[in-house]
């Protein structure tokens, strides 16, 4: 899995994505700047592509950081309650401010995402029985508890309909002006790259980090903040994308190990490609309708996840 090939694949699928859709746009149409095609292209297709790339890379990196910091290959925003905590945060923001602006939602959801993830890490600390499979199960249960709370209050407040928009990840609503929040993924990626060595060291445990003079707690907190930021922006703009943060880092780790400095570009690229392929398939399979991205990723992702579970005996 060379970076070069991943990059080429990314470009090919990106081009494909730009020219797949209900209204047919051909590259030649774009020469006419005023045509309807060009407008659709700029308002819908390009934002959609950018959103997919940012969300795919961002969620994969978030998963990578979580796996590194929890030292468990099966921990990710999906399996640690981060997604559910974020949704609870969105609900709270909707109840607190009747017409919550994006920024208000963002801030409250971020606080909840961070709080939920921190809480999960605390639970992780207290658990004596650190089985690789047991921990994500705890995370899923924790997430389900949060999710039930969300559903209960959403039901009470009659905003169930509203909430479900954040349940299903969906790129079909992405348009110019509705996805720009996702650009937060870019600084997150850069910071992660700058801190890559520290995250790798932190991934070897608190004692190991302290031996090398690393401020372990601070690195963990920085990592969790990055995860919460990415998760929040993705959920607010696209919705839940399950499994992405789980499978992508695992696949990369099998081939390239866990040295973040080395694996980070691969993880970001592969995450973007994977999401792009899922999106294209979702758009093509029942054309002219669309299968939502969370369903596509869920189906393909859970298959890959199962494969990883069975394969685990051979490697992790």
């Amino acid at each position, binding site marked *: 899995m060379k970076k070069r090939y991943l990059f080429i694949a990314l470009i090919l699928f990106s081009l494909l994505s730009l020219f797949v859709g209900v209204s047919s746009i051909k590259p030649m149409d774009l020469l006419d700047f005023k045509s309807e095609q060009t407008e659709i292209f700029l308002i819908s297709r390009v934002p959609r592509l950018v959103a997919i790339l940012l969300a795919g890379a961002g969620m994969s990196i978030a998963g990578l950081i979580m796996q590194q910091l929890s*030292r468990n290959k099966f921990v990710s925003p999906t399996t640690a309650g981060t997604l559910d905590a974020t949704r609870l945060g969105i609900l709270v923001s909707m109840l607190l401010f009747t017409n919550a602006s994006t920024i208000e939602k963002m801030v409250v959801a971020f606080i909840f995402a961070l709080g939920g993830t921190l809480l999960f890490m605390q639970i992780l600390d207290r658990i004596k029985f650190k089985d690789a499979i047991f921990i994500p199960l705890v995370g899923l249960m924790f997430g389900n508890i949060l999710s039930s709370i969300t559903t209960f209050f959403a039901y009470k407040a009659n905003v169930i309909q509203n909430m479900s928009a954040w349940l299903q990840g969906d790129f079909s609503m992405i348009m110019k002006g509705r996805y720009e929040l996702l650009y937060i993924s870019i600084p997150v990626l850069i910071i992660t790259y700058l801190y890559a*060595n520290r995250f790798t060291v932190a991934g070897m445990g608190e004692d190991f980090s*302290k031996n090398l003079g690393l401020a372990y707690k601070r690195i963990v907190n920085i990592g969790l903040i990055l995860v919460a930021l990415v998760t929040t922006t993705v959920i607010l703009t696209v919705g839940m994308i399950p499994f992405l943060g789980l499978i992508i880092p695992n696949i990369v780790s099998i081939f390239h190990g866990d040295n973040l400095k080395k694996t980070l570009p691969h993880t970001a690229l592969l995450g973007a490609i994977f999401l792009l392929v899922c999106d294209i398939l979702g758009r093509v399979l029942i054309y002219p309708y669309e299968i939502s991205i969370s369903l596509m990723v869920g189906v393909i992702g859970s298959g890959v996840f199962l494969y990883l579970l069975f394969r685990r005996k051979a490697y992790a």
Partner: protein
Amino acid sequence: MIQVRELSKFYGKKVVVEKVNVDIHRGKITSFIGPNGAGKSTLLSMVSRLVDADTGEVLVDNDQVKRMKSNEFSKRVSILKQSNFMNVRLTIRELVSFGRFPYSRGKLNAEDIRIVEQAMDYMGLMEMQNEYMDELSGGQRQRAFIAMVIAQDTDYILLDEPLNNLDMKHSVQIMKILRRLVDDLGKTVVIVLHDINFASVYSDRIVALKEGRVVKDGPTNDIINSDALREIYDMDIPIKQMNNCRICVYFNS
């Protein structure tokens, strides 16, 4: 010299280490021995700052450990704890390179790379430097960790039960390596050991703990005798002299 002064640790009301005073001499191997729960590992963890002491202080070459910056400390004292689940996939070379982390923060310069390669060479790991840690045998893995500590280039090297899960051959190999670190490179090594005979054969000094207190502290020859061992382990252990080694025959006592 590392000086431990009146060091104590409590977990709730339980005293794990109580007012311990120990001097660790430069250029020697010092072994911490004693029954389970004697506080050996906790003591080692406090000396290396992994665990905060409740009372007392530790001095490294007359500097208060508490006051040292963590980066500074990690250039002077290193600790290897028994890492039961090392499920991070790094190659040997990557791991050993992290030994330079206190100096380079991950950006290796030519000097760092030279030291890393020297350390791998010293531990005979050059040929397998690109193999992943999780695919190595226990002995190889332990050697890789020691290579990392060599690259970390600290005067003091602390190891918590480095022979755990190793077979006889590899245990002997590791102990010989530690001996060489002291004799050839002038390091100071402190080890927590379970096997009294490894302590007897390889260490210069022994500190025996029991119920959180130091019960014996001195040159190996003063500790490896039946009277002292009775006090430490509550067992009558005959000592046999073989090839200049004192062997404790505890199996049927």
